[in-house]
């Protein structure tokens, strides 16, 4: 873990809204299968905390009454879980082949140039983290960028990248 994150900021408890959201997920699965809601639970905890600290993962596991290691395995397997701190805005640019043919790679170069960071790096002010994306299933929208896991931005020209990065304070 990042040494600069103090013990204090890493303590974590699911808030009421997160618990209610997890309850709604648990209800989708058969009796005794609350573990099926671990993916949603981790997503919800990540949204609350900004990233999945070990404490956040453990809190989800405790809430679902599953072993902490079971939740940890899931958190480290799926790549949209951030098990290390990320900037306020996580920018993911798809550079896979179909996107690259329509400028995905050049869009990623442009974002790197603008932010002054490479993939898997965070700007010194903690504003942006940049990641290289694998297929998002939106190849027709290339260049495609996803912000903080849930906001898809399509057909990202240089002008649209400029506007997006300006907007994200």
């Amino acid at each position, binding site marked *: 873990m990042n040494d600069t994150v103090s013990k204090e900021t890493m303590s974590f408890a699911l808030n009421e809204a997160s618990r209610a959201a997890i309850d709604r997920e648990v209800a989708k699965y058969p009796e005794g299968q609350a573990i099926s809601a671990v993916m949603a639970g981790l997503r919800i905890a990540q949204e609350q905390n900004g990233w999945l600290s070990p404490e956040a993962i453990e809190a989800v596991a405790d809430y679902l009454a599953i072993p902490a290691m079971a939740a940890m395995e899931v958190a480290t397997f799926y790549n949209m879980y951030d098990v290390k701190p990320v900037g306020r805005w996580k920018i993911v640019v798809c550079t896979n*082949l*179909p996107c690259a043919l329509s400028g995905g790679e050049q869009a990623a170069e442009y974002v790197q140039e603008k932010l002054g960071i490479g993939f898997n790096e965070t700007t010194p002010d903690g504003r942006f983290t940049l990641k290289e994306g694998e297929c998002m*299933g939106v*190849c027709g929208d290339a260049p495609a960028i996803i912000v903080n896991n849930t906001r898809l931005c399509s057909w*990202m020209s240089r002008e649209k990248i400029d506007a997006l990065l300006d907007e994200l304070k």
Partner: protein
Amino acid sequence: MSSPDTPQSILLAGLDGDNTWGIEHYMKRGGYSALRKVLESGMTPEQIIAEVKKSELRGRGGAGFPTGLKWSFMPRNFPMDKYVVCNSDEGEPGTFKDRDILRFNPHLVIEGMAIAGFAMGCSRGYNYIHGEVWSLYERFEQALAEARAAGFIGRNILGKGFDFELFAHHGWGAYICGEETALLESIEGKKGQPRFKPPFPASHGLYGKPTTINNTETFASIPWIIDHGGEAFQALGKPNNGGTKIFSVSGHVNRPGVYEIPLGTPFPALLEMCGGMRGGRKLKAVIPGGSSAPVLPGDIMMDCTMDYDSIAKAGSMLGSGAVIVMDESTCMVKSLERLSYFYHEESCGQCTPCREGTGWLYRMVHRIEHGEGRPDDLDTLDNVASNIAGRTICALGDAAAFPVKSFIKHFRPEFEYHVEHKRCLVPVEVQREGSRIYVEHAAC
């Protein structure tokens, strides 16, 4: 954005962008009439499965397995829970068709799944939706709420004593979960690592219960088949390749996007629908069925029709119908390098040949691309690929091997040039111009 339908559309017909996905418009388009027909006319599960068999509908996710046959594998008279699962974990590079079904016509999938549930005696279903398309997960949840409120899912549907509950489950960034048993593991709250088969999901699936998993587009085809009959659906395509198919076209065409056309449509006709080659450049190669399908040289592709059998005969796979078009500005070594990186990144790590082999493949293609290739690398690559394919639990190993073998088979001189001259055959500035940021076609 306007709807992606074509004159031949049935799955994407009559849609108006983001405005008409809701149940009110779906019902105006005749939605839920197939489910009503099934329940009110007293169609039996056997009759439904027979109709699906007649339609010659083949799985739209990539394998092309006959859907009716798959459904018939589910045990009858099984007293306990059975599940129907939809695979909307669309992450095969080049594929983005299920996205448009879920975006513009989600109730079609719900109706198809409910009919499937009735035909196979399942009272519960899940739709596993790719995490990266988050808004579609939210939209599907809204569509489910509408369908539940209207009585098309839930208890005692249309008062006919049929119970069917349906829920959405989201992925969170793992290509491997598109593999059906990895997907089941993922719904069970585990890492998405594929299961050894047999037992197949029809006997031991979700939570150990009989389960059928179909692709989004497969379920979406069901209501039309019930409404119009299996024979009519079959007749839209060609023998053994029934129906229309939604193709996702990406790469060097003027209008990348989804195109729903009858199976058996000539490839040049599809290319023309996409506005032809970008900048009028020459077609070099096509991956016709998603990144896992072997690449074909452009001239072979121009003689193909877009259906399972024609593409298989040409030496590739129709797969998910993801057509990746590459023009003469493309460096085949660089293209393969990116795909190999993908498989290395996405290998779940369970089987040694795939976990280790995909890394070998990537590192070797990477060094060839970066001018450090050795003369015997091409044979070693082929050898490593051959030792992955067929030696892993799931098809990801094969999927990593096929591009390597096919790229080298069809474009060997380009790889040899790289090794010998330590640079691309296609000048880098030509590559960059060919693959510059291209958004001119988009309704930005």
